[in-house]
């Protein structure tokens, strides 16, 4: 099968890659770039485990063709180590027991970070609605919802 060249910025670094037209972004990240923190749960865009940031917006990397990302900036879970919002979320996720097996966690964190930045006044109902594109089979969601609410409250200065 033919291969196509792809230039992307991945976690702040330039990458020059080649991929088959049928390759999706998650396989490119996990394979050629060894960024295995992006997990594949369904490969049809429902479960959200593969969520990455694509040009600043959360995207399902399993239904994003790698070839469509030429020129794009991609940020995977490995690219947030210096990010203060992500640091606060990680702390809150651990404190609220918002993860068990860890498989949905990277996608969940990237969605959660987007909620924090985009909806600083979100209440619990809104947080749950915004999280509804990310499935977790372990936790029952309470810890995840509480962790997001905790970081929102901290940033509003209303933490208990």
């Amino acid at each position: 099968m033919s291969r196509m060249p792809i230039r992307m910025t991945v976690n702040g670094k330039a990458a020059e890659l080649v991929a088959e037209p049928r390759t999706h972004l998650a396989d490119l990240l996990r394979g050629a770039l060894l960024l295995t923190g992006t997990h594949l749960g369904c490969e049809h865009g429902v479960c959200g485990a593969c969520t990455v940031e694509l040009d600043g917006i959360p995207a399902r990397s399993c239904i994003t063709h790698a070839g469509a990302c030429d020129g794009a900036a991609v940020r995977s879970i490995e690219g947030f180590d210096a990010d203060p919002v992500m640091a606060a979320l990680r702390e809150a996720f651990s404190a609220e027991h918002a993860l068990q097996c860890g498989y949905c966690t990277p996608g969940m964190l990237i969605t959660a970070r987007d909620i924090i930045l985009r909806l600083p006044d979100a209440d619990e109902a809104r947080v749950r609605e915004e999280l509804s594109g990310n499935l977790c089979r372990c936790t029952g969601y309470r810890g995840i919802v509480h962790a997001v609410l905790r970081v929102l409250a901290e940033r509003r200065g209303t933490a208990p």
Partner: protein
Amino acid sequence: MTAVGAADAPPQGVGASLRRKEDARFLRGRGRYVGDITQAGMLEVAFLRSPVAHARLLGVTKPEGAEDRVFTAGDLLGVGAIRAASNLAGFRVSEQPVLARGKLRHVGEAIAACVAPTRAEAEDLAAACTLDYEELPVVTDMLAARAPDAALIHEHWPDNAFLETRREEDLSDLDGIAAAKVTRRLRTARHCMAPLEGRGVLAEWDPRLEQLIVTSSAQMPHVIRTGLAEILGLDEAQVRVIAPDVGGGFGYKGILLPEEVVSAHLAMRLDRPVRWIEDRLEQLTANANCREHHYVVTAWADREGRLLGVEVDATVDAGAYSSYPFSACLEAAQIGSIFPGPYTLPRFRCRTVSACTNKPPILPYRGVARTGVCYAMETTLDALARQLGIGTDAIRLANLVPPEAMPYRNLVGKVFDSGDYPEALRRAIACFDLDRLRARQAAGEYVGFGLGIFCEQGAHGTSVYHGWGIPMVPGYEQALARFTPDGGLELRTGVHSHGQGLETTLAQVAHEVLGVPTARIRVVHGDTALTPYSTGTWGSRAMVMAGGAVAEACRLLGERALAIGAVLLQAGPEAVELAGGAVRRRDGSAAVALEEIARTWYRRPQHLARDVDTGGLEVTAGYRPDPDTGTHSYACHAVIARIDRDTGAVALEDYVVVEDGGKLVNPMIVDGQVLGGLAQGIGTALYEEMPFDAAGQPLAGTLADYLLPGATEVPDVRLDHMETPSPWTRFGQKGIGESGAIGPPAAIVNAINDALHRFGAELTDLPASPARVLAALEAGRRR
């Protein structure tokens, strides 16, 4: 001396809600699952799978030029079939070929393995194969499976049943003496457990070790090792199974897979690492399912609601094959022993059938048969209460085992260790304003209140399982504890974590015994080469069994350290004690830290006494509770459900769980287990269903068709704990991992029926989907 175990340090032992040690790697995406692991020269496998449910397989034509990259049953020389037998009288064992041989028995059955450098190319190969088959009549319904004219799935069997069990008791006099009698026909839906990570396996042959190394997303690596060695004809020492991080299990990964056997065989045959990663379509349509039960329940009660007797006819759709190691009959046959639930049932008659159908085989899912049993018993009790005109709380209080009867042996011989079941019910009800609810109902609102109460046998051992005669029987659980030369503590256990946080909780147990800070304790698990044998993580057993074993190993290790410490302190053995991570003189005059003792054993042996225990600072110890019939945690679920009369949608307004898991080793993690199970139980109650059409085609091939509860479907549950210690376990802990998934269908459907019965409607089949709710309302209007 180092200041170990300072008094103001936050608690880390048994009972502390310690944050999880494993979180750090997961939060950075640094968990390592089988799909993250690659090897140089690795080949990927894609399976050509059956497109039909029942057929004679006449041939497979491999793509031209790719004959050496496509493998069918005829190519697998020396590879046996998977057999999971049971000693139960009359059990018929199936031969499950790892690649289909002669017949196709369910959609998705693996027919050929195609290998290529990438999965995409392997799938291209599978797509280029041509299949020749002759279709046979299909058996999709478990009741129709036993009709005299049903096609036989295993042709040498007299009918399509793995096993039928009977508990006989004459109940014919009850019609004459009972104040009330109800009969209900109930169904639960076929499920897929759907952990977010599918299964997967990476197999390679190590020529130096002459060993097959199989990395697999597995709950029970030691059992997989035994099964692989038997089927591949290898010495067990030639097989090493590694389970890395496992992305959820719930029972789905407690199985020896045909795909594991095939991948392992191909790795040896091709002398290349071979990997298969299950995709979601395979998981939903091809691999083991669960939970599909059918019940006819009749119950008799006196005027006060006391049960006089129960008769049950239960069928479980076990699919086409008996899965290794739990077999095709565990789930159905278990119904005969757990149906009485937490009640003092005086008389009981029960028939169970493990039906064989043209569907994927079943596996025990979180709660195993209890979710269906609880659903059947609890909805029948509510029907009885309605007929008698008494409260749903009153009928339960009239029958629950009273606390003063504990330990209680029920009529089928189950022994409940401890607890106060009526108190759990009372506490749950006290959380609600039921007068207000009744007022809303009187005002015409479609709302209802429902209860579900049950007990969960966990960590049951040899005395329970030997009677099943399945390929594994749990015995003494072992753990190894040892100090490293720098004074760190290493624990090795054969159980494995797939989200339960054992790296944290087992460290808490060790801290409780030895006082070593949990930061200095490492849990090694998930590798048969590094850990003692264990049947693994299933049956809510890890904290009771491995927790007990770790405690015992640490206790013995502590004695060794104490003896060395006494010598270093120049004190007699009676003058010293182990406390706060150090050996101390009882008079408080001196202490020596465990680090120093470890350093002495390993690196300064000249300071050891001549009669030192040469076993050193490494102990393997075994543990089994006595009696080993299992702990019984229990819970009462209570919920208010609101029904949209126009759409049939069910909303859960308020949900309360009162739970008794005995002593909680880590309350935060226990809450997580209960809440996670509860979300799955809500899925069972309202959303999850794997339908098949008349041709045996599975109809939910994506997660847009097979509905898992999301953050908007699971309410912010209120949890209350009673902590009645089990008298039989090391710290009083009880197995609790499955409990949350057991109660929701019963409680939720009871709430729905509390709302619907005033409109002449009643729901009996799961899930309580909008279509089923509307159909029940429509039937009520016609009545």
